[in-house]
């Protein structure tokens, strides 16, 4: 029973993971709106979710890592659990200080992402409600 529940909720859980991660990336962009040379990043939701879910013939994205050809080389990872799904944002208007954060784009994306995350939370809640109703036989 528990593993069925787990199976049932795993997609939503993965989606929430990606949404949470995106929220964090967007917060980083907004925090660095005035930092010289900072480059805005975003995660491609579709490929990140595919990477998280995997299977079903979908090529999973491997995290971007440095090649280690010598024993003395440092490992180091791409710093992102979703690897290649995290990309730099294409800039609309260049700034003299090399910063590529467009506050309007970031705020809109943040609001959209928050809404999507809230929707996922609602889905989980309703799913539990349905299960509870089934258990109680009402």
């Amino acid at each position, binding site marked *: 029973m528990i593993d069925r529940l787990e199976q049932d909720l795993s997609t939503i859980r993965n989606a929430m993971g990606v949404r949470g991660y995106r929220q964090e990336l967007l917060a980083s962009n907004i925090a660095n709106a005035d930092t010289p040379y900072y480059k805005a990043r975003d995660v491609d939701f579709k490929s990140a979710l595919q990477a998280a879910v995997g299977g079903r013939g979908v090529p999973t994205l491997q995290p971007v890592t440095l090649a280690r050809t010598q024993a003395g080389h440092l490992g180091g990872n791409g710093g992102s659990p979703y690897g290649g799904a995290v990309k730099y944002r294409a800039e609309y208007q260049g700034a003299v200080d090399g910063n590529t954060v467009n506050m309007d784009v970031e705020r809109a994306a943040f609001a959209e992402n928050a809404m999507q995350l809230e929707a996922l*939370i609602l889905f989980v809640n309703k799913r539990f409600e349905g299960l509870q109703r089934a258990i109680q036989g009402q």
Partner: protein
Amino acid sequence: MSDFKIFAIAGSALTAQSARLNAVASNLANADSVVGADGKPYRAKQVVFAATPVEGGGIGVRVTQVVDSAAPARMQYDPANPAADEKGYVTLPNVNVVEEMVNMISASRAYQTNAEVMNTAKTLMAKTLAIGQ
């Protein structure tokens, strides 16, 4: 949990932006200070931002240094002033009041946005905690 990192990220931005606001306040307050702490005219202070990784991933921001503005000092002809040089010019601070006002508005808007990010993260977190209740 990633939402906690958002607090660290947005929090670092709040700290950095308030440091910038602090510098603006100093500059505006001393826009006409002919003599500073070192006996010379006050020089405008500017903060330098740098992206910095926060614990557990994500990129925050911090103030790496506060630099004196390299703009030339304002010279005002006022021979009656005791601070005037032999030609009668008084060296005034290199504070550009208009620039500082713009800086202030920009800093306060950035502060507001980050506070909003924090609020959104808090709301979402509360909703996540209430799942299944």
